[in-house]
């Protein structure tokens, strides 16, 4: 009797494991087939030319100034966008975390709502708002505030505005998740010990919210590095990002090896940034802070 029950429990375990594998199979197949295999192919492609091994595609990072200038510009954009998103996002998350549940739901809904609209549509929307005969310029001119239309788009400024708009949820949500978990008693204790509101914020609240800050910054930074449609449509052809260098290499010059090597270097940069950030907070918290 006991023998057979052990057997049946073992069999049950085996069945369960098979079931788990079966359930995982589609996800594993998708990740393997659509991510791992293409990435390996990409890496392979980046060291091949005319059927032989080569490092020529990587050597271009040292010899071709377009390459490093593009990376420089991309990182510059990523820094500006991240800083702007933090400045705009922090107060929003702060208010959302501190207010009643109904209000915080409302605020978060406002943050996430644009998220459900396509990136392409939002890029065009910004174009309509910011262009020379767009809403903003028309309004400013009619109010008599400006004589000639301002150049708000088809440059780096327009690209930054639209990119910040698109990426703001990635800043606000991890910030909110972290702030919400900060016990209100702590700030109260700070105040009761005689701290001014500013002092309490700087000494108690801000340090406790730092994991959220890091998580939000890393997400926004890394996502900006790979931005393509927004700079392509709003950058006026001058805001040249790494992703555009990749696409140009393929579309215009048919240089698959060069395009692959750029992608690999960008990927390495992203890994490096995550590694750096994980020194401050664990990786799972960056991705799972929500």
């Amino acid at each position: 009797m006991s023998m057979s029950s052990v057997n049946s429990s073992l069999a049950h375990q085996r069945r369960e494991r098979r079931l788990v594998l079966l359930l995982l199979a589609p996800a594993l197949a998708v990740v393997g087939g659509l991510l791992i295999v293409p990435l390996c192919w990409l890496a392979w492609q980046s060291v091949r030319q005319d059927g032989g091994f080569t490092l020529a595609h990587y050597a271009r990072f040292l010899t071709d100034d377009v390459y490093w200038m593009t990376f420089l510009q991309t990182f510059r954009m990523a820094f500006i966008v991240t800083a702007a998103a933090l400045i705009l996002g922090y107060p929003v998350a702060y208010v959302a975390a501190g207010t009643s549940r109904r209000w915080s739901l409302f605020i978060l809904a406002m943050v996430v709502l644009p998220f459900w609209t396509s990136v392409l549509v939002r890029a065009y929307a910004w174009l309509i708002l910011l262009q020379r005969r767009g809403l903003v310029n028309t309004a400013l001119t009619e109010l008599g505030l400006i004589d000639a239309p301002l150049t708000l788009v088809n440059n780096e400024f327009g690209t930054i505005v639209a990119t910040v708009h698109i990426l703001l949820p990635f800043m606000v949500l991890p910030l909110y998740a972290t702030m919400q978990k900060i016990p209100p008693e702590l700030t109260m204790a700070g105040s009761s010990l005689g701290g001014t509101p500013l002092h309490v914020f700087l000494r108690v609240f801000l340090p406790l919210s730092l994991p959220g800050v890091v998580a939000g910054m890393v997400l926004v930074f890394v996502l900006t590095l790979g931005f393509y449609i927004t700079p392509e449509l709003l950058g006026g052809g001058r805001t040249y990002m790494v992703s555009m260098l990749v696409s140009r290499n393929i579309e215009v010059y048919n240089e698959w090896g060069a395009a692959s090597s750029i992608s690999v270097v960008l990927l390495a940069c992203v890994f490096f940034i995550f590694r750096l950030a994980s020194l401050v907070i664990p990786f799972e918290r960056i991705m799972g802070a929500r």
Partner: protein
Amino acid sequence: MRVTLSIPAITAALLLSAAAASAEQITFVSQGGAYQEAQTKAILDPVAKLLGITINQDSSPDAWPVLKTQTATGKPIWDVIDTPTKDCIRGGEQGMIEKLDFSRLPNAAEIPADYKTEHSVPYEFYSSVLAFNKQKYGENGPKSWADFWDVKKFPGTRALRSHPMATLEAALLADGVPADKLYPLDVDRAFRKLEELKPHVTVWWTSGAQSAQLLADGEIDMEMAWNGRVTAVIKEGAPIGYTFNQGFLQETSLCILKGAPNLDTSYKFLNAAISADIQANFPAYIDYGPGNPAAYKTGKISPERAAQMPSSPENAAKQVLISVAWWSSPAGEEAQKRWASFIQK
């Protein structure tokens, strides 16, 4: 994804090979979209009827990568492609495109020599023209690239394509190089002239749709754009004018893949597709001009319509034919690579 896609493809291929026994056929490839729809009516259906063959269609916005993979196996599926002439030339150099036997293409005799290459015959012409906002400049808009460069006489926002082809030529014309002395391009001189205008260029456009939108929204006062895009904007009622003067005539060509499964039928198709009578159907469906100028003598194209066509003899005379041979040469490739650093700095 690949596997699921290829099953219908294989089924289709099997069905097609079964049909091959009964009738002659070819697989023709173009760039898709409205353009391919238009030529189906203008060229492909009439040719299929004329020759009694079946024309299977495929489309690829950029045929080059597919061309490379298909010919690498030695057994391509495609027969004839409609693609920028450059693909035919470099494809020919790399042994992927059939060298044409012009004795089998009697209709090619009517076509000017500089429209043809060893590997290709011209199919349709488009032009990179100077377009401008009529509200801004009235009837006295810019008429040449020298005007385009003249920011004092013609203040306003400008846009150019973020690509050296036709742009370098425009810079040289603006700098006073005679149109018949353009090639080989003086690349250094062209980039110097472009540097001059660079601060005044608001947008370097990267897609045809974008160039049209810039004109339609009044964001740009003058730009170099493809004539089909410009006329589409004008049809929608935007106050835009353009000139063929100093426009840059460019063509897509037909060429045959090396090892094409239906070589004989491909030749028959090519010869019929470039005939003046068939080519004269183009203007009825799309704003691109026939590749065979004899089409304008068939009486099928009205003088009004001919005036809008980039390849009509009258308009062609005002324009510069882009030398694809130069752009495919090492100097041309080098100029293209230099473009990225020009834009960046």
